[in-house]
């Protein structure tokens, strides 16, 4: 288990836990990213930029800032 920030692009992972506050959790759920879902890291921004994830089931793509990505715990 590691944070989303540690994952390299192209790797597929499963969301284990979202350690953020209520607003963040609600936002991610409503965008279709739920605990247990599999996502792929599609890209990483340069210079400590955001993470781009693609939901493997739906294809929904979401850009997530570093501070939030750090709180998303995933498992390869």
């Amino acid at each position, binding site marked *: 288990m590691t944070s989303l920030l540690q994952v390299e692009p192209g790797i597929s992972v499963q969301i284990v836990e979202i350690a953020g506050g209520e607003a963040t959790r609600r936002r991610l759920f409503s965008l279709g990213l739920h605990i247990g879902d599999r996502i792929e890291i599609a890209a990483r921004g340069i210079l400590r930029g955001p993470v781009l994830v693609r939901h493997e089931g739906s294809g929904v793509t*979401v850009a997530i800032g570093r501070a939030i990505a750090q709180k998303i715990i995933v498992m390869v």
Partner: protein
Amino acid sequence: MDGPGAPTIVFLGQPNCGKSTLFNALAGHKAQTSNFPGTTVQHTHSEATIGGRRLNIIDLPGMYSLHPSDPAEKVALRHLFLERPDLVINVVDASILGRSLELTLELLEMGRPMVVALNMTDLAEKRGVLVDAARLAARLGVPVIPTTATHGRGIKELMEAAVACLDRPCRGPRPVWSSDVEREVDAFAARIPAGFPCISDARFTAVQMIESGQTFCDAFLGEIDPALKRALDETRGRLGTPRGKPAYEVIAAERHHLAQKLFEECATVRRRLRRPWSERLDDVLMHPVMGYLVLAGVMLGFFFVVFKIGGPLETVLLKPLAAVKASIAAQLGSGLFFHLADGLLQGIGGGAAIVLPYFLPLLLLMALLEDAGYLARIGFLLDTFMHRIGLHGKSVAPFILGFGCNVPAIAATRILESRRDRVLTSLLIPFIPCSARTTVILALVAFFLGPWGALGFYAANIVLVAILSKVLSGFLKEESPGLILEIPTLKVPRPGSILLKVWFQLRSFLRFAWPILIAGSVVLGLIQALHVDAAINAALAPLVEGLLGLPRALGVTLIFGFLRKELSLLMMIQALGTDYASLPSVLTSGQIIVFTVFISLFIPCLSTLAVLWKETGRKIALLSAGLSVSVAILVSLIVRLFV
């Protein structure tokens, strides 16, 4: 607005599901569409006659769920709860059916008559998702009509179903959750006293209350009905504790599972042989190196297209203007009538000859970027830089819109979740050179110093915005919540949609801005004829002559810069009593730069100030005015010292 007889139909769906495109196809040229989540920030109203019936149709901002997290979503929720529409058309993106159905399920819980528009079926098929609309309709208990809004497919069928539902309301059965969750929710609903301000019914209100977390309603409820508040907290505890998560998540998970089940039952997913072109293109657009090269290329291209189209077009349009002015002078002499006629001519001509050549190409390019879905990608690419100045990538879209016009840009800050980000972004937008200021910058800086000079001016302007953002964010105590931004699928922009959007913006310019431009210009003519300008110039002389080192006659142009920025150029030429080409004989290039800097930074124009006031309140609007005057003076002084 129509009379009470006409039924109201609202279009509701998650952001970027093609709702506005569908609405446009139906209502004509009303709503704006784009490929950026959350661009419909207020509701659009229209009327239509279908099958001989008059209908009020309303396009609401997209919402992910009935628990809004930004003000644009709140607009939709307020409308849905308070206006109680006769029918909801729930627009669903078939290509991401599982997620879209979560909102559909929430709407079913609310129990308003509903028709589902299964939109983007073409995109879904390309992604290998085939949805069985008949089966979905059977499961949901409401009509499901497949549509492809971009090609106008299925719209007739959709409206036929909608009209049929007005006569015989289509209500699906309420989705059923796990038995223990059902039990708790029903038990709490039964405790809601008669006369409680319920939305829909007690059961729906109970769910809303359990889900609505730490809002002020909770504290309010504790005040007016402590027993009910206790029951609510106990219900939340009994729902959440066994599953080890908060009650709202338990309910969200129930919906998620139901939506996934529906998706599996009603859709077949074929494995794609190859990734769609949009994903492969994204590999380049979002690449850590190539992505930024493309972005730089797009921005440079943007600038040069506007410059290359605008410049020559302006020259062509300005020529007849000078000829007409000469003939007016010959006929009317130089009295009051000449000044009035000249003011009128400059106002009408200035709008057409100076604003349109730059405004139109800018609008076209902006619409192109937005519709293709590139705007959201710029948000991703620039997030890291925005972070360093105290913001995040979601503010990029309002900023870029600001290059067109600050007014819609400030309205677009509603897509930001936190007030802190909205205030900071709204304070910075007036420093973005809008197309009106672009005309001044291009006409003065680019014309006399070349395109690279103008580009340098823009670069310096962006650096200034960054510095201001850094400084201002130091005063804000809260932290920015950070970026969570959906990146929509890349689409080939459709000319029809782009032209519609450009027309929409252009119409509002012609209706609101142009008359002010003409009136302001006539007033200036009057001021000159009555020699009031001397008094204004004398009053402003310490600023204009003393601090800025500009000719005293330019004082009066500052007044008009407040009304409309694009007026300043006309006013400047008029005030100096010269013509455009011979400006360098009156002003040095240093003075031209100081004037341009001051006029572009000082005070947001009247319309911008009005929208700032409306969106962020009086305090922020006044702060913005004060801030821009001080920054304008400070930066102009620095420029004066170095140029």
